């Protein structure tokens, strides 16, 4: 019995291997071990959504996943959305619609939005609000975030 564990996973398409403390959270593994600091740590108990990533395509709070549990999975972070240097449509929409101010909630918001739009390409405003209900923003008042996601769903 040991309190270190070997993990092998894919992060943004790149295979990664490490031996980590068993108690290491996925959020801290991404930030501290891989240098992917786009995933933000807010409440560390699953309430704020700032740490939202995709695990095998499904949104997850990285603070509520042990790095050990992510063994064998494909994790996508905010850093993994751009293609050939071009921002993801959701990222572009957030920029165009002023959907961020301090930016702390933004990666989590975008990952949650990416999951929503993959499942529901033309969501109603209600569906957008419900899907993003687990992501807290202190700056924007949410309206521009909803507008950005609506715009990303139906590109002009």
């Amino acid at each position, binding site marked *: *019995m*040991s*309190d270190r*564990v070997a993990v092998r996973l894919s992060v943004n398409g790149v295979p990664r291997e490490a031996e980590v*403390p*068993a*108690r290491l*959270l996925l959020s*801290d593994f991404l930030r501290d071990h891989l240098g992917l600091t786009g995933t933000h740590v807010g409440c*560390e*108990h*699953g309430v704020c*959504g700032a740490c*939202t990533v995709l*695990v095998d395509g*499904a*949104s*997850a*709070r990285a*603070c*509520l*996943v*042990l790095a*050990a*549990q992510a063994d064998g999975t494909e994790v996508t972070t905010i850093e993994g959305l751009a293609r050939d240097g071009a921002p993801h449509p959701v990222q572009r929409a957030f920029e165009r619609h002023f959907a961020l101010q301090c930016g702390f909630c933004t990666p989590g918001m975008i990952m*949650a939005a990416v*999951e*929503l739009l993959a499942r529901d390409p033309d969501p109603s405003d209600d569906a957008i609000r*419900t*899907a993003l*209900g*687990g992501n807290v923003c202190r700056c924007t008042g949410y309206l521009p975030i909803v507008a950005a996601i609506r715009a990303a769903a139906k590109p002009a």
Partner: protein
Amino acid sequence: MKPAPFVYRRPASVREALDLLATTPDAKLLAGGQSLLPLLNLRLATPPVIVDMGRLGGALDEIRADGGELVIGAAVRTARLERDPLVREHAPLLAVAASHVGHPAIRNRGTLGGTVAHADPAAELPAALRALDAGIVVAGLGGERRVAADEFFLGPLTPALGAAEMVTAVRVPVARPEDRFGFAELARRAGDYAYAGAAVRLALAGGVLRGVRIALLAAGPTPLLARVAMAALEGQAPAGGRLAEAAMLAAERDCDPAGDLHASSQYRREAVGLVTRRALDEALPGYAAGGPS
């Protein structure tokens, strides 16, 4: 904050997991982690050993019909319960209750077995299972036993599970054509723990209500059956006045909610009446008349 150090094991079979639980004092099972990880991160729980169920696979991931029951493996994620065609057809109350659990990211990771074993009185799925008169399949080294949902939740966070036992499946009676279902909860913000919630299953046959089950969440130390309200409806024709009366009985006679930081006991009691009425109205659309909703 970060979890306190622990020894981590990831068994490859239920048998191996049970052996670990039997031989390791104070070992804690990790399923979806959506209830356990917050406790670990806040250091409200500091188990010396964590047994990760993530690789147990097999039957724990299955949903299948067996006789008159739907058998759902303990590792099935809440999000899958929302969407699975077998669940939506044969146990629609579970699918609806699942859609009220937290937020999408929570539902993607949390499991049915995990929320059942965690036995939070404010959780949606345990209440839905009581409303459905479901059976909880518990595995131990000596074999499997079945515990009725009505007997499984002993107190807050206290399931009827021995130290070397684990939930492996839930068995739910398949919905019959005459069955009707309703679910409602009231929370300050979507995804918050509810002030009160109600899960209803009843049958409407020959113009009369049969097999009425109303389970309340966040109204007491466990999910509660609103037995006085249920008795008032059993064998009666549905009518708005009766539904309003049942909701009032659920609030006044079937629970004694404690007040806390989030809501006073009187507020919670009124919330119980409201959600019971809404759940009954959902189960019996067209029969609602009068009373607050």
